[in-house]
């Protein structure tokens, strides 16, 4: 097996919740709690989960936009978290982020061309060359550089803005692209166009994607492997086919059951989970899903289940598969 491009081990980020007169820490929001995974060069890892499960925090942790409390991130074998500021600046060329909100992610005072060229200028590219490359990339993502280049973000549609967002991330020629819900703010028809653009760009530029979304259909479409998150933890991983065909974790099953399918053959009769996820401030003991799980047992409350492989392509953190893997199909 080829060495992983991105290795994540035991990544943890708890946000303090301050309150009271003295602003003392009252509680911790466990946004990301012990997440580990590998991303092989050239693959697309889909990360799926409900809103509030820590997906966006994870994206920012991977790029070291926020510092984790514990854990390790290795890019191409190099410890990202130990990198010096100068080394970090170099590393940032190789790992870029595409943001979720096409409105908040573009500076309203910069033209589209300047927005894309900015990253190059930061890394010392001469102005004329930066502008030239920005225009070239704008053309590649489907915008007319002569028509849109001198425009401001508010003059563009959501889909066009997201193309700018993608161009900005790609202008430094990164090897890894973390996409944080890149299409969830877009209309369905525009979503498809942007997804296809992303697939084309990936093939063209030999990119590796970490694709975060709450939309299973999107994840199934783009993802080679999928990682399911629940309340800051990974509950199941597997190839996209394995997960779609036989989701093992009750939460994954519920996710697939609640995802609207275009195919009547694929519509499941099982009830999706009810209620909202518990508060990540005080997550349930043991397995965090047990409060909404219809298979919850006494031991689920005792200790969090370890992630065990149920097949060469699938691993799940659930006691149902600990002793007798065949009991729930």
């Amino acid at each position: 097996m080829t060495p992983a491009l991105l290795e994540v081990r035991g990544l943890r980020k708890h946000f303090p919740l301050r309150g009271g007169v003295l602003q003392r820490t009252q509680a911790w929001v466990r946004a990301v709690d012990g997440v580990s995974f590998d991303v092989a060069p050239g693959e697309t890892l889909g990360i799926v989960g409900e809103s509030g499960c820590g997906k966006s925090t994870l994206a920012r942790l991977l790029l070291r936009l926020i510092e984790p409390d514990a854990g390790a991130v290795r890019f191409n074998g190099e410890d990202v978290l130990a990198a010096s500021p100068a080394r970090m600046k170099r590393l940032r060329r190789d790992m870029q982020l595409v943001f979720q909100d096409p409105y908040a992610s573009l500076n309203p005072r910069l033209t589209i061309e300047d927005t894309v060229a900015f990253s190059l200028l930061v890394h010392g590219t001469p102005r004329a060359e930066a502008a030239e490359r920005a225009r070239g990339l704008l053309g590649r993502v489907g915008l007319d550089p002569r028509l849109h280049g001198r425009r401001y973000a508010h003059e563009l549609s959501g889909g066009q803005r997201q193309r700018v967002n993608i161009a900005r991330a790609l202008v430094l020629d990164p090897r890894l692209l973390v996409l944080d819900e890149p299409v969830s703010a877009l209309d369905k028809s525009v979503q498809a166009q942007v997804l296809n653009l992303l697939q084309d760009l990936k093939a063209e530029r030999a990119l590796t994607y970490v694709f975060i979304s709450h939309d299973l259909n999107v994840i199934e479409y783009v993802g080679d492997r999928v990682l399911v998150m629940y309340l800051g933890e990974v509950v199941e991983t597997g190839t996209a086919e394995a997960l779609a065909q036989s989701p093992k974790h009750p939460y994954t099953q519920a996710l697939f059951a609640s995802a609207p399918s275009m195919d009547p053959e694929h519509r499941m009769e099982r009830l999706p989970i009810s209620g909202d996820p518990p508060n990540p401030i005080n997550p349930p003991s043991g397995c965090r899903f047990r409060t909404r799980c219809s298979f919850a047992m006494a031991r689920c409350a005792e200790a969090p289940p370890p992630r065990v492989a149920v097949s060469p392509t699938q691993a799940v953190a659930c006691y149902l598969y600990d002793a007798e893997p065949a009991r729930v199909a």
Partner: protein
Amino acid sequence: MAISTAVLQAEMAAATPMSYWRTVGWRLARDPTTLVAGGVLALIVLSAVLAPWLAPYDPAAGSIRLRLAPVGSPGHLLGTDEQGRDMLSRLLWGGRMTLIAGLTPVLVAFVLGSALGVLAGYIGGLVNTLIMRTMDIFYAFPAVLLAIAISGALGPGLANTVIALSIVFVPRVVRVAESATVQVQGLEYIAAARASGAGVGAIVRHHLLANVLGPILVFSSTQVSLSIILAAGLSFLGLGVTPPAAEWGLMLNTLRQSIYVNALVPALPGLAIFATSMAFNLLSDGMRDAMDIRG
């Protein structure tokens, strides 16, 4: 052929849009209220600047025989004050003082307040607490009371008035600057700039200031009218410009006993203060609208 030329021209215009500040100027020029306010203001400022050449008399030279001449008297278009000094000359000269005492503190507050506010908002944590809580101390006093207290402590004079009023306005601007900075800093384009490897300087210059200074400027401009009124108020109380120099607030004070003799003449400096602050208010309203281009 004619149609295709028109389409081509429209496309050319669309392909070369104006820069942000040119668009703002273009929008300002299309707002009649703002234009009138701007015109009035330009007139006031110009007359104050050109006072030495425009004023028909020495503003300090009075005549005992010609005290409190009514508006429209021969030789004294706007009458004379209680010491027989020409009102038109004094209003023109007084405008200089009032404008300097009113505008300078806001300018100081804009520069100093933006710097402190952006610093507090960008760094956050202890620096933020230190700056913002210090500002809160000043903010706790009513503006007029604070201005009087500081002026009283420093003593009368134009320079002290400017210092006192600056202390009044800096905390207000800091508040606006800090909240704007915190808000912008949470937006994803700042995170994107950091993800691209940009340093603090580049982020602040190209991404933060560009989006924060506009709102601060608009807020500061709304404070000009208040500053002018406060400056005039301090002079009225004898804490600002010292006689015999002409200043609108001071003129109001010395003329106030004469209101029963000749009501219109004492009202003139008041009208001048009113017109100037009103013009500034309308102008800043127009500016706020013109700068709100997004959406």
